[in-house]
C-alpha cells in the first residue's frame, strides 16, 4: 500500500474528477444538441480568422467541398474573423438552411453552399471516443472509490480522467461554439498532463520504482557522484516530478512563441504543437518501459502474471496510438490513420479491468458472480446457436437443399450447445475463479486447522509457516507471552521480546488492526517498545498484527515484506487480521485446553491428597471405657484443613486418651498439608508430654516456623477415665458444648486461646472439666456453627445448641446425621464455605462399646 495522500490533495483530486466529468458530459451533450451545424472543425488555436482544422466525414462541410486547411472568410453573407463570430452567425441560422460560405483555399477565394445539419455528431467515431473516455473514467472512479487512500490509485484516477478528457474533448468533432473552445482547452490540458501522469503512474505502480544502478557494494569503489545524484533524482525526487510536469507546458510555450514569430502553422497537429504530441508519445513509451521493467524484475510468478497482462494490454493500446495518432500525423502530417491509433486504446482500460477482476489489482476485490458469468455464457452460446441455425437455414434456402438439412443442422447445433457451453465455462472458471477458489480454500483450511489445533507448537507452525507461504510473505512470526515473564516473544527466537505493559502492546490493543511499522513514530513509544521495534525492523518485519481477544493481547503477528516486494494491500492486511483472529481463537482454545489438563491433574492430585487425608483420620473410633465417641469431618474442598484424632497418650485406650480437633486456616492442598504437619507435631509433643499447655506451647513454636500467616486452631482434650475429667487447652477453636440436664452450655474457656502459629512465643493454660454420667459433649470446628445460608446468615451457636439438645437422646451416629440435616436445611443448598468437623462424646460410665465407624 502506498502512503496515504494528504486530505487536501485528495479533495483536489475529487474536484478534478468532478470537473472532468462535467466537462466531458458537457462535451458529449453538446454533440447531440440539435443546432445548426456545418461539420467544420475549426482550429481553436488559429491566431486570426477561422481556419478549418478538419471537416467531419459525411458532414455538411465535406458535402459542400470545404476542406481541412481552408479559411472561412464568411458565413451567410457576413464576414467573420473569429470562431465566436461564426458561432453567433450560425446561431441566427436554422438547421436545414442552405448557407453560403466564403472560403479561402490557398490563393483562391471560393463560395460554397452548405446545407446546415441539425446534428453535430459527424460520425460514429466520436461515439466510440466518448464511450472509450467513459470507460476510462468509470474504471478510474471505481478504483479510486475503493482505494481513495492509495497514492497509486489516486494517480490512476487522475490518469483515467485525463484519458477521458483527451478522448471526449480533444478528439471530438468541434465547431465554433464557446463550448468547443472550452472543451478543446480542457482536451489540450489533458494532452499536456496525460503523458506525465501516465509515466508518473507507472513509476508508482505496481510498486514504487527504485533504481539501484549507483549503490555502493562491499569491496568495490563507491560509484561516481553524478551517478549517485542521478539515481537519487530518478528515485522519486520532487525535482523529477517538477521536470515531468513542467516540460509539456514549457514545450507548448516555446512552440507557440516560434509559431508566432515564423507563422509556420505546420508545427501544429490537430491544432496543438507537434512537440507536445511527440512529448506525449515519449512519455507514453517511457511509461511502457517502466511497466516492462517492473515485469522483468518481478520475482514472483503471482506478481509477474498481472504485470504481464497489463503490459500486453497497454502495449496493444499505446503502441498503435503512438504510431498512428501521434507520430504519423506529427511527422508525415497524415491523419488518415487516426482511428487505427485510437480504437486499440480500449485495450488499456479493458486490460486494467480484467486484471482487477482476475488478479485483484490495486487490491480491489471484485466478486464476479458465477451465475452472472454463466448466464452471459449461456446467452452467448444461445446466440451462436441461433446464428448458426439462421446461417444454416440461409444456406439451405440458397442452395435449395433438402429441408431435412435444416432440421438435422438445428439438431446438431442443439446437441453441441451444452458441450460448447461447458468448454467455455471451463475457460472462464480457469480465468476468473480457479485461483481465487484455490486461495480461499487454502485459507479456510488454515483457519480451520488453527482453531482445531490444540498443540501450541503445531498451531504456531500453521500460523506462521503455512500462512506465510499462502500469503507469499517472506516471513511471519507469532510472538506469544513467554512463560517466565509474560513478555511477547517468538518461542523459536526468544531474544526479541516486548515486555508486559510496554506502550506498543497497549497501542496494538487500542488499534486492534494491523500496524505498518513505518507508520509508527518510535519517539511516541517507550524505550522497550522502541528497542523491540528496531529489532523487528532489522529482522525484516513490516507489519505488526495484534492477536487479541476482548481487549487482551494474546500475541502479535510480525509479518515480513511480501515476496513480490509489493506494498501490503488491503486484502493482505485483511487476511492477516483473519489469521490473527483465528490465531487468537486458537491460542485461547489451546490455553483452555492446557488449563483443563492442568485442572484435571490437580484434581487427580487432590483425589490422592484426599485419600491420604482420609487415611489420616481414625479408621475406627477407639473403644474407651465410660464414653461413646462419634466423629465427622466434611471438607469444603476435596481436601480440607480440619482434622480430629484420638491419641492414647499412656500407650493404650484403656489409659488417658487425648482428643484432638484441629482446623488449619485456608483450604485445599496447603491447608491439608499444614494439617498433616500440625497433626504430626501435636502427636509428637503429646507423646512426649500430654499436658495440654505444654503440647500447645511447643506445637505453636514449631507451626510458626513452618508457615507464617497460616494458623492452626486446635482443641486438645485429655480424657482421664479414672478421674472422669477432661483436661484441656483450646487455641482458636469454638468452645465445646456439653448437654447436661437438657441444656447445652459451653465448657469453661481457658485464658489463652490464640491459634497455634499466630505468634512465635506464647503461653497457653489448661482447664479441667469434671464429667458426669449422661453428659453429651460436642467438639467442633467453626465450619459447623458458621455454616452460611444463601442469605449469608450464620447457622450460629444457638441453633447448634438447640439442634444438639433436640437430638441429644438419639444414638451418636443418628444424632450426627440429624445435626447435619438441621444445618443443611438452614443453608438450603448454599455452597459449603468451610471445612466442618465435629466429634460427639457421650459419657456412659459403662464398659467400652464395640468400635464404631467414622
Amino acid at each position, binding site marked *: 500500500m502506498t502512503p496515504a495522500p494528504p486530505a487536501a490533495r485528495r479533495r483536489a483530486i475529487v474536484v478534478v474528477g468532478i470537473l472532468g466529468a462535467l466537462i466531458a458530459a458537457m462535451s458529449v451533450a453538446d454533440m447531440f444538441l440539435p443546432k445548426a451545424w456545418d461539420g467544420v472543425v475549426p482550429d481553436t488555436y488559429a491566431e486570426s480568422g477561422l481556419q478549418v482544422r478538419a471537416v467531419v466525414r459525411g458532414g455538411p462541410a465535406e458535402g459542400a467541398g470545404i476542406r481541412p486547411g481552408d479559411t472561412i472568410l464568411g458565413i451567410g*453573407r457576413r*464576414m467573420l474573423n473569429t470562431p465566436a463570430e461564426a458561432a453567433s452567425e450560425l446561431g441566427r441560422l436554422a438547421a436545414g438552411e442552405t448557407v*453560403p460560405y466564403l472560403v479561402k483555399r490557398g490563393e483562391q*477565394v471560393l463560395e460554397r453552399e452548405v446545407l446546415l445539419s441539425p446534428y453535430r455528431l459527424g460520425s460514429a467515431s466520436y461515439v466510440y471516443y466518448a464511450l472509450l473516455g467513459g470507460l476510462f473514467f468509470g474504471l478510474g472512479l471505481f478504483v479510486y472509490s475503493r482505494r481513495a487512500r492509495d497514492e497509486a490509485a489516486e494517480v490512476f484516477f487522475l490518469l483515467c480522467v485525463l484519458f477521458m478528457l483527451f478522448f471526449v474533448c480533444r478528439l471530438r468533432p468541434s465547431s465554433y461554439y464557446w463550448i468547443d473552445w472550452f472543451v478543446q482547452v480542457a482536451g489540450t490540458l489533458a494532452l499536456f498532463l496525460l503523458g506525465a501522469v501516465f509515466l508518473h503512474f507507472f513509476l508508482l505502480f505496481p510498486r514504487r520504482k527504485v533504481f539501484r544502478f549507483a549503490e555502493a557494494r562491499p569491496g568495490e569503489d563507491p560509484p561516481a557522484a553524478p551517478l549517485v545524484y542521478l539515481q537519487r533524482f530518478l528515485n522519486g525526487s520532487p525535482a523529477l516530478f517538477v521536470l515531468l510536469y513542467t516540460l509539456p507546458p514549457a514545450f507548448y510555450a516555446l512552440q507557440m512563441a516560434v509559431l508566432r514569430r515564423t507563422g509556420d502553422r505546420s508545427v501544429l497537429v490537430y491544432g496543438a504543437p507537434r512537440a507536445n504530441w511527440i512529448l506525449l508519445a515519449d512519455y507514453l513509451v517511457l511509461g511502457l518501459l517502466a511497466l516492462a521493467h517492473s515485469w522483468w524484475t518481478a520475482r514472483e510468478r503471482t506478481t509477474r502474471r498481472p504485470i504481464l497482462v497489463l503490459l500486453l494490454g497497454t502495449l496493444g493500446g499505446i503502441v498503435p496510438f503512438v504510431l498512428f495518432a501521434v507520430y504519423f500525423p506529427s511527422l508525415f502530417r497524415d491523419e488518415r490513420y487516426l482511428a487505427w491509433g485510437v480504437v486499440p486504446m480500449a485495450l488499456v482500460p479493458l486490460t486494467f479491468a480484467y486484471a482487477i477482476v482476475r488478479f485483484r489489482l490495486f487490491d480491489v476485490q471484485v466478486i464476479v458472480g458465477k451465475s452472472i458469468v454463466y448466464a452471459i455464457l449461456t446467452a452467448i452460446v444461445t446466440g451462436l446457436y441461433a446464428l448458426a441455425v439462421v446461417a444454416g437455414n440461409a444456406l439451405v434456402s440458397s442452395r435449395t437443399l433438402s429441408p431435412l438439412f435444416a432440421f438435422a443442422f438445428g439438431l446438431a447445433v442443439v446437441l453441441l450447445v451444452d458441450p460448447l457451453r461447458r468448454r467455455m465455462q471451463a475457460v472462464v472458471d480457469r480465468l476468473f475463479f480457479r485461483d481465487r477458489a484455490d486461495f480461499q480454500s487454502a485459507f479456510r483450511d488454515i483457519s480451520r486447522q488453527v482453531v482445531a489445533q490444540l498443540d501450541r507448537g503445531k498451531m504456531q507452525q500453521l500460523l506462521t509457516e503455512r500462512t506465510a507461504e499462502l500469503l507469499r510473505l517472506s516471513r511471519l512470526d507469532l510472538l506469544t507471552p513467554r512463560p517466565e515473564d509474560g513478555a511477547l516473544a517468538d518461542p523459536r527466537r526468544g531474544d526479541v521480546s516486548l515486555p508486559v505493559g510496554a506502550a506498543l502492546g497497549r497501542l496494538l490493543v487500542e488499534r486492534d488492526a494491523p500496524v505498518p511499522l513505518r507508520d509508527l513514530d518510535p519517539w511516541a513509544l517507550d524505550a522497550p517498545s522502541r528497542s523491540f521495534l528496531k529489532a523487528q525492523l532489522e529482522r525484516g518485519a513490516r507489519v505488526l498484527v495484534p492477536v487479541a481477544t476482548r481487549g487482551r493481547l494474546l500475541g502479535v503477528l510480525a509479518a515480513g515484506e511480501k515476496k513480490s516486494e509489493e506494498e501490503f494491500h488491503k486484502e493482505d492486511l485483511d487476511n492477516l487480521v483473519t489469521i490473527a483472529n483465528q490465531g487468537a481463537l486458537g491460542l485461547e482454545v489451546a490455553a483452555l485446553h492446557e488449563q483443563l489438563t492442568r485442572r484435571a491433574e490437580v484434581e487427580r492430585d487432590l483425589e490422592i491428597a484426599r485419600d491420604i487425608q482420609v487415611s489420616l483420620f481414625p479408621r475406627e473410633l477407639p473403644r474407651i471405657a465410660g464414653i461413646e465417641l462419634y466423629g465427622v469431618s466434611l471438607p469444603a474442598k476435596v481436601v480440607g484443613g480440619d482434622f480430629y484424632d484420638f491419641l492414647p497418650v499412656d500407650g493404650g485406650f484403656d489409659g488417658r486418651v487425648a482428643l484432638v480437633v484441629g482446623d488449619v486456616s485456608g483450604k485445599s492442598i496447603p491447608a491439608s498439608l499444614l494439617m498433616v504437619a500440625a497433626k504430626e507435631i501435636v502427636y509428637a509433643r503429646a507423646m512426649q508430654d500430654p499436658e495440654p499447655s505444654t503440647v500447645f506451647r511447643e506445637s505453636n513454636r514449631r507451626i510458626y516456623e513452618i508457615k507464617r500467616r497460616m494458623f492452626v486452631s486446635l482443641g486438645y482434650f485429655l480424657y482421664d477415665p479414672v478421674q472422669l475429667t477432661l483436661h484441656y487447652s483450646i487455641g482458636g477453636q469454638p468452645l465445646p458444648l456439653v448437654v447436661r440436664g437438657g441444656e447445652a452450655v459451653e465448657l469453661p474457656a481457658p485464658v489463652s486461646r490464640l491459634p497455634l502459629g499466630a505468634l512465635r512465643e506464647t503461653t497457653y493454660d489448661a482447664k479441667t472439666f469434671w464429667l458426669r454420667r449422661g453428659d453429651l459433649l460436642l467438639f467442633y470446628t467453626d465450619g459447623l456453627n458458621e455454616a452460611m445460608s444463601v442469605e449469608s446468615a450464620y447457622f450460629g451457636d444457638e441453633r447448634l445448641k438447640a439442634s444438639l439438645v433436640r437430638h441429644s437422646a438419639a444414638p451418636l451416629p443418628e444424632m450426627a446425621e440429624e445435626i447435619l440435616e438441621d444445618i443443611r436445611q438452614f443453608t438450603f443448598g448454599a455452597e459449603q464455605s468451610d471445612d466442618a468437623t465435629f466429634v460427639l462424646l457421650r459419657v456412659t460410665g459403662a464398659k467400652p462399646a464395640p468400635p464404631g465407624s467414622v
Partner: protein
Amino acid sequence: MTKPRVRKLFLAVAALAVAAGGTAFAVLARDRREVTTRSAEAYRFYRQGLENERRLYHKDALASYAKALELDPHFAMATVRLAGLLAGRDRDRAKSLVQCASQSREVLNERERLTLEIVEAELLAGEPKKAAERVREYVRRFPEDPEGYFRLANVLAREGKPDETLATYERLVALDPNQAIAYNYLGYYFLRRRDFVKGEDFFKRYRFLAPDQANPYDSLGELYANTGRYAEAEEHLKRALEIKPDFLPAVGHLGTVEACRGNAEGAVTWYRRASELAETWKDRYSFAGAAVMALLDAGRAEDALVLLDEVAVAAPAREGVDALVLRWNVARSRAIVLAIAGRVEEAEAELAGLPELPPDFDPKGKAALETSLSGPKAAMAVARGDLEGAVRHFREILATEAERGMGDFSYYPSIFRVRTRLADALVTLGRPDEAREELRPVLAVNPRFAPALEVLARIGGRSSATTGGAGR
C-alpha cells in the same frame, strides 16, 4: 415585512427598472441615429439612399435622397448627399444644395457639422486641402464610423497615395468586415496593380456580401474579361444585368469581353448599347469611342466615322478650354479613323486644322493633348506603309501610358490593341523577337487576347510568348 408590502416594493422596483431601461434605450437610440431629421420616413429614405449609393445605383440614390428632402426639407445630411451625387453632373445645383444645408448648421450634431464642413470645403470653397483636413479630423473624432474612412480613402487616392489608401481600406474592413463596397475599392486597387488574384479575392468578398447588387458581378466580370476568362466574365456580367438591367458598366464590359475575344461586331453591339443607355454625354462619348475602335477592328471605318460624327454633334455646347479640348479629341479620333480608312490626306488635314492652344493653357494638359497625337500619327504611318514610323509612334503612345502607370482598364482594351498593332508592324518588318517582347505584357495579363494571339500566330512562336500568364 408583510406580503402586500413586498408586492408593492417589487412593483416599484420593476417600474423603476422599466423606466431606467426605457431612458437608456432612448438615449442610446438617439446617439445611434447619426443624422438629424424630424421625420422618421425621411430618415428611412435617407438610409435607402445610402444603401443605393453603396450599391452604386446612383440614379436610385438620387431619387431616395430627393424623397427624403421632400419629407423633411431641413434634412441637412440628405441635402449634402444629394449634392455629392450631383456634383459631377450639375455643380451649380450641388453648390446651391450645400448652401441650403449650411443654414441648418445650428441644429446639427458634431458628426453632421464635420460632414457639412467637408462638403463645403470641396464644393463651395473649392479647397480640397481644407476638405482633406476636415476628413482627417472626422476620422480622428469618429474612428468607429466607416464613412470617415471612405472619405479619407478618396482623399488619399486623390493625393496620389495608393499605399495609404490601401491601408485606410484595410483599417476599414478590420473595423467592420461587412463594409461591402470597401472590398470593391480594394479589388480595384489590386486590379490596377495587376495583382489579379488579390483583386479577385476582394471582388469575391464583395460579391459574397452583396450578392443582390449588380456591381460586384460587374467588377468580377471586368476582371475576368481583362484576364481572358471570358465565360466567367460573361456569366457575371449577365448576372449583373439580371439584377439591374440598366447597369451601364456591365453592358460596357460585355463589349470588352467581345473585343478581347476578337469579336469586333459583338463588341460594337454592346458598346453602342451602352452608349445609348448612358445618361451623360461624357459616358455616351466614352462608349461611342469604344464602339468606334471596335468598328475599326471590324474593318468598318466608314461606319466608325459616322458614329464619331454623330456623337460629336450631340456634344453639349462648351466654351473656352473645354470646347478646345473637345475639338482636339474629336479631331484626333477622326484622324485615326480616316487614316485607318486609308484616307491619309484627310487625316492629315484634320490634324492640320487643329486650333492653336493658348499660351496660358495648362502645360500638363497641353503635353497630354500633344502626345495624344501619336495615335493618329501611327495610324497614318501604317496607312502610308511607313512601318518604322508607325513603330516609333506606337512606342511613343506606350511610353506615355508607362508614365501614367499603365492606366486603368478601359472598356475598349486600347493599350493592348496598341501593343498588338505594334507587334504586327514589327512582324511585318521582320523583327519577330521584338514583336514577341511587345506581346508578352499583353498575354501576361490576358493569355487569350485574340488580336495578340493572331499576331503570335503570324510569328509562329506562340509557346514562348504565352509564358507568364495572368493567373488562371
